[in-house]
């Protein structure tokens, strides 16, 4: 079966060790995680993992069930690139002399719509958020001028479809209320 990039979105409780538990699911199956990001979600106290992997459809379906099986996971989803809006951020650090001596750098920055984050006498830092191809292009364009440092974040993404996590939590709270009354 054909392998494809999938974005896994996981809504979780905030528990120490959960990153370990989730990454262990991939480790056990010898699957390489391309990127992993954790952050707060739209719901207070609920966290969100975004994991990118290249797998078959069958593989991703099974692994998402294994993730969802974890007690502290509220819900897990998988999506193809077409079903999500996703970006990555990259930072590029370059010597300031290059900026003034090489006119071309300024054009590259302008064309790529990157943002200048810091300028100091020794170095400057620019930031670019976008698709992988865009941050990669900028990397290739700047490389000849001497990159002091380069770093790229994991993918963050939101889905086109609704996730319905609040509904799940509300249903749980409602049944709890009922239990208390009865």
């Amino acid at each position: 079966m054909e392998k494809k990039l999938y974005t896994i979105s996981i809504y979780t409780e905030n528990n120490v060790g959960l990153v370990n538990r989730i990454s262990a699911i991939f480790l056990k199956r010898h699957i390489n995680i391309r990127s992993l990001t954790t952050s707060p979600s739209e719901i207070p106290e609920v966290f969100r993992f975004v994991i990118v992997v290249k797998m078959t459809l069958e593989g991703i379906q099974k692994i998402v069930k294994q993730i969802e099986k974890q007690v502290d996971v509220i819900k897990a989803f998988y999506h193809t690139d077409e079903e999500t809006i996703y970006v990555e951020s990259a930072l590029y650090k370059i010597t300031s002399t290059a900026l003034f001596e090489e006119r071309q750098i300024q054009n590259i920055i302008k064309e790529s719509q990157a943002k200048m984050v810091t300028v100091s006498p020794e170095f400057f830092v620019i930031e670019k958020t976008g698709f992988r191809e865009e941050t990669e292009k900028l990397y290739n364009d700047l490389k000849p001028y001497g990159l002091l440092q380069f770093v790229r974040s994991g993918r963050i993404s939101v889905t086109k479809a609704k996730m319905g996590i609040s509904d799940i939590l509300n249903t749980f709270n409602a049944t709890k209320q009922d239990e208390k009354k009865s």
Partner: protein
Amino acid sequence: MKTKTASQPTTVQAKNISGAEAVIRCLLAEGVDLVYGYPGGAIMPIYDELYKFQDQLHHVLTRHEQGATHMAQGYARTSGKVGVAMATSGPGATNLVTGIADAQIDSTPMVCITGQVASHLLGSDAFQETDIIGISTSVTKWNYQITKVSEIPSILAKAFFIARSGRPGPVLIDITKDAQFDFFDFEYVPCTGIRSYQSDFPIAQDALSQAATLINAAKKPLIVWGQGVILGEAEAAFKTFVEKTGIPAAWTILGLSALETDHPLNMGMVGMHGNYAPNLLTNECDLLIAIGMRFDDRVTGSLDTYAKQAKIIHLEIDPAEVNKNVMVDVAVLGNCKDSLEQLLPHVQPLELTAWKARFHELNAIEEEKVIQKDLYPTKEGLTMGETLRVINEHSGGDAIIVTDVGQHQMVACRYAKFNQSKSNVTSGGLGTMGFALPAAIGAKMGAPKRQVIAIIGDGGYQMTIQELGTIFQQRLDVKIVVLNNEFLGMVRQWQQLFFDKRYASTEMINPDFIAIAKAYGIAAKCVDQREELSPAIATMLNTPGPYFLEVRVEKEDNVFPMIPSGASVSDIRLE
């Protein structure tokens, strides 16, 4: 919320008590009256409280922490309650890992409590500090490190709820020493639900009616059931379902004893050393009804050729098991007791005379080629099979049989007779040698009124032989049968069949087992003659208290039938 304990957890309060005392009170609130464990520095405050509460909570001192986990497992398997094991930090905690992994793969409800270094020392490589949370993560259903005393009641409540609900499993709670020492106002409220965790599923009616339609139209249906029937306490509903429809039913090793072995529709075991008929007919049936089982590779053999001709229905509580190994046509998610009870009114008695005749035809072949030779050998040496036959003759099928891992396990599960559920205790998914002796101790304590017979190989026996000390100290009535072939028999069998008889490190030079048993004050006997076997087993079963029986069996016997690993169930070999 359904829970499976005999007594329901209760709410309890107490002012200004220590964390250690709180742990004991949590256990009592959960109805625990028995824990297995081994003390050490980081768990001493809890042991100090165990001393004070010894009238209410019996602590069994094991001889190794692995033994504590297998005892807790044996206890859980025969009592249906959560088993509890305790250990200190560092090596105490790491010694638990094998048993935890075993409980995880065999869905056994267990709570392990480990002591941990004080919270201010975490990460400093303090004496006996290990990251047991990290180590146990992939083999626990849930784990948690308590660093504050106030967390103790709510976390332990969750631990028990998680261990016993849904698909049961092991939970490990690591408690730092300062959290055990600190004082707080205690309130225990049993856990009844966790928002991120669904343990029970309402039965989907459309799936149920699709299943009923398939069943009612089947001409050659086969049921394969697993431990889900036992864990879901679905034995009665299951039996009614089998009898109403008249469908032949076969079991996975962990499903054994859920339906009595003599039942006319019980067609024996599926899998690598299972019976001929149900394995072959898996690839002839038109409908496979899988109930509370997970299509383990030892059951299915090669997936490419497994039941491809059949429609498949799967009654299963764990969503992650559905379509994991075998793609199914209808999945009914939920406790199989609920699904079977709701399915019952929709299914009809089926006319299956010709189909059942196929089973009897194939049974006759296995009977002639394998079973008769195993049970009534004409050669000189004793066989494992005849030992089991004689045990059946004396126990009448009323005993709990605990097995280790290897040839004796396969033979025992093939031939042991069972009249009631929760009577077969074995290490299925992990195949843990050393399981049986400690598990038999737990099994006896979980069902004190029943006869418990452990059947163990000479290899596995020596992996946890030190637990004879626990039997001695606790004065437990456990019968131990070692089937001694002076080989790591199952590995030797593979070497014979697949490695040209190169017996690399499988021959064992054994100690004087009788002297060892006697040293622990256990009555013991060794037999190697056929005419001695039956009287020896009678003596063993009639002797009050523990008894050790060594049976010297044929050294190089093999277990058949056999599906070579990776082969199709249709390629099952009789010799």
